[in-house]
């Protein structure tokens, strides 16, 4: 996808959502989803998803950091010497993570306490680094923002699905509201505990693979 004729584009006059932008967007969310296909950033996908609210906050955090770091890495791509680019990317990412962490600490202390070290661990979240390295270094700022939003969203959606399933099955609640009453539903404690996270993510990836269909070379065992 280098460039497409503008006639067939639903994207609007700004050219942000031109052919490449749209393809980038869809890739991030479905075609090349950061968690289920690239299997990046699974640490936090497992750790914060015991409750839906935490998953959503983490999703927002990742979108923010991804967009910010993609934008700045892309803006600075022509002036960053090739050899120190990793350190430069690391510093940019850490800056945005610190911003978000301070924001949480200032306005949502309870949430910040529950997420614990996992906000800080966004720095080593391979998705952010991977997108900066693989996409933002080669592309213009606007497309890079789209890529950041898309990958952040792809990540947030997976987190929300796992968080929803784990909270519903494990505690019978959604966002703290009781959905499955304990009168007739016995909460499956396993889903809230650590093993439930691994199993839930494993099943999710399997279902995703099931939708995509088998790999061509694997159709005949």
């Amino acid at each position, binding site marked *: 996808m280098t460039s497409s004729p503008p006639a067939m584009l639903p994207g609007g006059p700004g050219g942000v959502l031109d052919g490449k932008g749209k393809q980038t967007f869809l890739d991030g969310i479905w075609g090349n989803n950061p968690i289920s296909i690239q299997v990046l950033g699974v640490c936090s996908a497992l750790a914060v998803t015991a409750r839906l609210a935490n998953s959503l906050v983490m999703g927002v955090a990742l979108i923010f950091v991804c967009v910010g770091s993609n934008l700045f890495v892309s803006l600075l791509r022509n002036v960053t010497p090739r050899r120190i680019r990793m350190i430069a990317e690391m510093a940019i990412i850490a800056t945005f993570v610190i911003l978000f962490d301070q924001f949480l600490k200032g306005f949502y202390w309870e949430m910040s306490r529950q997420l614990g070290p996992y906000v800080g*661990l966004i720095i*080593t979240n391979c998705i952010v680094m991977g997108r900066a390295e693989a996409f933002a270094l080669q592309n213009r700022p606007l497309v890079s923002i789209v890529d950041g939003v898309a990958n952040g969203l792809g990540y947030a959606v997976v987190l929300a699905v796992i968080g929803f399933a784990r909270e519903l099955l494990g505690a019978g609640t959604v966002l703290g509201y009781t959905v499955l009453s304990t009168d007739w539903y016995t909460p499956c404690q396993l889903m809230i505990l650590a*093993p*439930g996270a691994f*199993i839930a993510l494993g099943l999710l990836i399997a279902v995703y*693979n099931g939708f995509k269909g088998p790999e061509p070379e694997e159709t005949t065992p």
Partner: protein
Amino acid sequence: MNETSAWVILIAAIFTNNILLSNFLGMCSFLACSKQIPTALGLGAAVIFVMTGTVALNYWIYHSLLVPLEIEHLQFIVFIAVIAAFVQFVEMFIERFSPPLYYALGIFLPLITVNCAILGASLFMVIRKYTFAQSMGFGFGAGVGWALAIVLIAGLQRKMLYSNVPWPFRGVAITMIITGVMAMAFMGFAGMVTIQ
């Protein structure tokens, strides 16, 4: 909590609060390198070494630089810089003085900079307000626990080469599920020692 002995923390970090199986840290390199036992052993050894070293360094920097200067909010950027520098330094040091060890560990060292378990150990140390001895116990224990988990999973992966896994589960999905079963097995240790 502050009186907990460093040895108790060490045992807890290996078994009951395993950094991989109960805190989910270091999953990326775990998924990439858990196919063969020798690779897993090499990466595990490198993680034990780097984690112990960086926790000690970060403890010292946090308590003698960041806290007196009241710039604790810079901890993320400082910690990651310390980890990157430490890994780089260790790599050069080993290459110079012990080439065999370098060839055994060398390729794993750069990977470790972005291993979230390493940064996570330093962050847990700050959040749980460990003393220096406790931090050392925690850093070493967490490294050993991580290495133990990855070697065990590598062994299981070998067995799985000969089993007929349904196609949607092939690859990462089944690895996740056996890791979940392993985490359940490790929960059997709960109650042996308790931290936090």
